[in-house]
């Protein structure tokens, strides 16, 4: 497909401007004018429309295809929440407005949305206070680890380590390291959860906190979580819950009741707001009471007269994590989603997410190796070791799925499973969609036996085939 600049023809225009009948005023001071003409493409309107329509047809997303991406809950985004976020009374307010004189009165609705969202997230997770400031999951993780640091600093306690199991989320070690901690990785046991003996060995008074993804990236809920939390607390360490996989447990278990001190949630996962390029994301962080004074400024608070305002007077706060609630539209979509589902709805969401994943796991057993777990939560991991012996690797199966109209799941993660494919169907998928996925996966397993070489050519139906991932990672300069 040609670039829009390659389609450009000098002098072509989409819009004809009428000849002005008002005399041109004096020219602008050159300080404000550009030195060279802007290099914009010249095209007719239909050319522009066709170009972008054709580009959009190359999209491969959850609105067009089944998207069972494990570890990242690629959930369908209900369109009604988009409509609500587009209401001009919400969309046309400015993040600085609450700070203007009397501006607060013009943003009461938005502040109430933020405050209410914080309250319902507290209810869902069993925490005491929430901040909706962090702009993404990893940003929430960093905020959480900074809260852990603030807690220990307050006590004059210098601790060095954060413990993270190898089945945790990939961003956890990075967040802990950015916050200045050293990371100790705890291996999984043969059941796929953190090895209790290893954990005991590493737990001491130098450990600042434990980061757990629960259920973990193998889709397994750690049955000894309370015991782990008690051990950590006995040593003075805090428990951090990575909420990326909350979709599995809503209304069934609350991190706050399990002994966690800090939680981050990914609204763009569990609460159905757009992911990735459709974002921005949102990574709200919840804490137990004893950490609330450290939460980032500003805080949305309710005055005695029932109005809302932003409170900056928090002397022990870790400070700004982001300056404004600039991703307010995302918060609004998540809030709308929670209200639409309601308590019963959210419980059903988790039940169906877990049911769908278990259905797929059962049906794929026998065709692929499934190294961990009799049952799973919202996702599970298969291993393509059997297929790899025939020369067909996880990446080959993933590429073949594209040709079958299915977005490839996460591959080669978690690292403790060889040739891993991590599958998370989510609750929105019908029996027919799940059955079609199973049919395709079985067909590919059979093809791997019969004709392994065929896989090297997949995908054939896309505008570009196999990309050179190695070159992409080694030569990151794309303009050269």
């Amino acid at each position: 497909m040609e670039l829009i600049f390659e389609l450009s023809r000098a002098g072509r225009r989409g819009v004809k401007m009428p000849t002005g009948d008002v005399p041109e005023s004096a020219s602008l001071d050159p300080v404000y004018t550009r030195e060279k003409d802007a290099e914009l493409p010249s095209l007719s309107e239909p050319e522009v429309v066709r170009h972008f329509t054709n580009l959009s047809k190359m999209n491969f997303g959850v609105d067009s295809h089944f998207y069972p991406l494990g570890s990242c809950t690629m959930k369908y985004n209900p369109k009604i929440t988009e409509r609500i976020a587009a209401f001009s009374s919400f969309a046309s307010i400015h993040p600085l407005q609450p700070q203007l004189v009397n501006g607060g009165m013009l943003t009461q609705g938005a502040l109430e949305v933020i405050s209410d969202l914080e309250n319902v997230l507290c209810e869902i997770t069993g925490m005491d206070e929430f901040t909706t400031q962090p702009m993404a999951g990893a940003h929430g993780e960093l905020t959480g680890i900074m809260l852990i640091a603030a807690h220990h600093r307050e006590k004059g306690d210098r601790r060095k380590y954060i413990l993270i199991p190898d089945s945790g989320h990939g961003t956890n070690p990075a967040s802990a390291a950015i916050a200045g901690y050293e990371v100790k990785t705890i291996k999984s046991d043969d059941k796929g959860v953190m090895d209790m003996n290893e954990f005991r060995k590493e737990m001491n008074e130098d450990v600042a906190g434990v980061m757990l993804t629960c259920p973990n990236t193998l889709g397994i809920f750690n049955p000894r979580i309370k015991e782990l939390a008690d051990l950590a607390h006995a040593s003075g360490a805090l428990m951090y819950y990575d909420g990326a996989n909350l979709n599995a447990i809503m209304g069934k278990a609350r991190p706050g009741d399990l002994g966690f001190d800090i939680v981050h949630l990914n609204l763009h996962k569990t609460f159905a707001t757009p992911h990735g390029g459709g974002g921005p994301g949102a990574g709200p962080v919840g804490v137990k009471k004893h950490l609330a004074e450290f939460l980032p400024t500003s805080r949305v608070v309710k005055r005695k007269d029932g109005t809302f305002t932003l409170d900056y007077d928090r002397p022990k706060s870790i400070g700004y994590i982001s300056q404004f609630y600039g991703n307010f539209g995302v918060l609004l979509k998540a809030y709308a989603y929670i209200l639409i589902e309601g308590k019963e709805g959210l419980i059903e969401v988790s039940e169906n997410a877990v049911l769908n994943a278990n259905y797929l796991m059962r049906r794929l057993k026998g065709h692929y190796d499934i190294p961990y777990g009799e049952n799973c939560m919202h996702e599970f991991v298969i291993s393509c070791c059997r297929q790899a012996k025939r020369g067909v690797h996880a990446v080959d199966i993933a590429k073949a799925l594209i040709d079958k109209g299915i977005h490839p799941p996460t591959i080669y993660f978690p690292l403790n499973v060889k040739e891993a494919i991590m599958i998370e169907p989510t609750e929105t998928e019908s029996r027919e969609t799940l059955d079609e996925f199973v049919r395709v996966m079985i067909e590919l397993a059979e093809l791997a036996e019969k004709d392994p070489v065929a896989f090297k050519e997949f995908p054939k139906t896309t505008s570009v085939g196999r990309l050179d991932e190695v070159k992409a990672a080694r030569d990151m300069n794309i303009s050269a």
Partner: protein
Amino acid sequence: MVPEELKYTKEHEWVKIDGETALIGITDHAQSELGDITFIELPVQAKQVKRGESVATVESVKAASDVYSPISGEIVEVNGLLEDAPETINLSPYENGWIFQIKISDGGEVETMMDAAAYEEYLGTL
């Protein structure tokens, strides 16, 4: 497949002893598990390291992995070639793809490492 003259660790590093120094890299098994290597963060020269300490990071299209020093001592040399051509580890894990050289401070540590036969047996159990 596994060179006879080297010593090995469970973390898939190899060690080539040469008098008071040792050359260290990752094994053919390790590079094949990682896949195409795209980047390496080399150890810091002249740094004193303890056995088991993470000294380098190898990044591939699949994952980033730590390289641990199997021996305590001082890092005397790093393989600068890998900065521009990290794929050398894939192409020649036991020769041109060596990662660093260390001055051995405790010869006893070498004794506890696996020899080629033991490492091959270990690979069989994975």
